[in-house]
């Protein structure tokens, strides 16, 4: 198993090590966008487990569950003028 993992790691490193020619006129932000999508997926997982933890905690707590997010309610300082 270990040699296989090592081979895969080497292949990934070699594949990513170079800077190929990305045609700027096609899409200059492709790499950045892909990483942002991956980040969104990770954040989604963190959000899911955070919500789950809050639900579990609220089951054992007498206090009412906190609002899911500050932004769901009127944000302080947003009173219309």
């Amino acid at each position: 198993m270990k040699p296989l993992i090592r081979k895969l790691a080497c292949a990934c490193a070699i594949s990513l090590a170079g800077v190929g020619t990305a045609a700027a006129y096609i899409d200059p932000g492709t790499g950045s966008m892909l990483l942002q999508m991956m980040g969104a997926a990770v954040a989604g997982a963190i959000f899911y487990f955070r919500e789950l933890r809050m639900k579990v905690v609220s089951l054992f707590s007498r206090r009412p569950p906190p609002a899911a997010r500050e932004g769901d309610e009127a944000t302080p300082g947003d009173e219309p003028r």
Partner: protein
Amino acid sequence: MSAALATSRSFRDPDATLIEHDGRLIRAVRGHALAAFRRMLAHPVVCRWMDDGRLVRTRPVLPVEVPPQLAGFEGECFEHERIPFVSQPSEWAPEMLAAAGSLTLQLAAELLPRGLELKDATPANILFRDAEPVFVDLPSIVERRPGNRLWVARHQFETTFLLPLIAAAEAGLPVAWTLQNPVAGLSHEALARILGARRWLKPGLWRPVALPAALAAKAAGGAAASTLAPVSEAQAVFTLERGLKALQAQVDKRISAMAKRSSHWRRYTSARAHYGSADLEAKRRFVAEAVAGTKPRRTLDIGANTGEFSEIAATEGEVVALDIDERSVAAIWERAREKRLPILPLVGNFGRPTPALGWRNRELESLLGRAAEGFDLVLMLAVVHHLRVTEGVPVAEQFDAVAGITRRHLLVEYVPVTDPMFAAIARGREPLYGDCQRPEFEATLLRRFQVERKHELPNGRVLYLARRRAG
């Protein structure tokens, strides 16, 4: 497109354009974008940012005030406050770029839970009022699609703020090089090539440089997705907030890296062997008296160095402090910001002033165009000999250029050919600079200016306060 819009300063945005009329800045918002723009303008967070000056103050223009060239415009006009001096991002020190980037991230973070976002994120959206960044591109604030967890402007933020900062911190590349195009900036691929293997050896460079560059090259052939399925608003805000915080952490990291750097010019004031304390005191006194006597509302300090004379001029009005060295400009900016002085420090070489840039060379005006007839006093302290020797600009040319900038006064310091600083840069070529002999220097000055006061320092240097001749 009308003639007014054809000559507009800002024409790329399909929602709005910006024109200048009689010294006023008019933002013309097109009909299709008007309702959303009005809603944005009335939003409490936008009003609060305008009140504290972080967002350019803007008011609706009454129909009778609409400039004639916009008479047939299908939309509505708004007037922005004028920022005293328009700077280009390529003229900022990295610390100023970081402050502009932080302001952009703060605004994006405040807009986020209110259902708004920035549709673009470039230094071209920011100007400096003295040492403070101000967000000036109001049409960039738009309503966000609920549940969208990708920030469309993130790539632009990276290439125009983050990557130039990394280039400055890691490779010492000046912002003037990396932000020639403030809308496109520096690509991940270009920076990856500049950094070479270092981008993989330093883990801190993987996320901002190495991975995007590698992935861009791999994915360029295929059609890349740019949307994700919508999620709950709470999850979208959570995701976007995390992204903004990560970007802010990246910016902060580069600033602390740069704080460790120093430069020859920052050490200059503490090691001015060519200036005795009596000379320096006399020079300070002459400048202070000249400033008090002429009361300049606006001063341009060419070759500001550490900005001690800019600070004297700032006692009477606004100052633009120009210096060739990024580190000196950064030091002036930090002090001006800390002490809340009306000083805008900019990186620039008066011998090679910033050219006009952008489409038809009209989007970003040249330094001389922006400075023309814009100052009551110009300081040229110990700088004429640098321009003469290092840049090869004859003294007469220098005074001609300055006469087009100052409306009234010039305070210039003459450095004799025998001065050690002159000798250090001329390196035996002194005979080439006949116009730097004192009689020739004075005769050249008198062609354009009338000397009001003169003071000879014990070290042989001479200070002149001169008034521009009419015509």
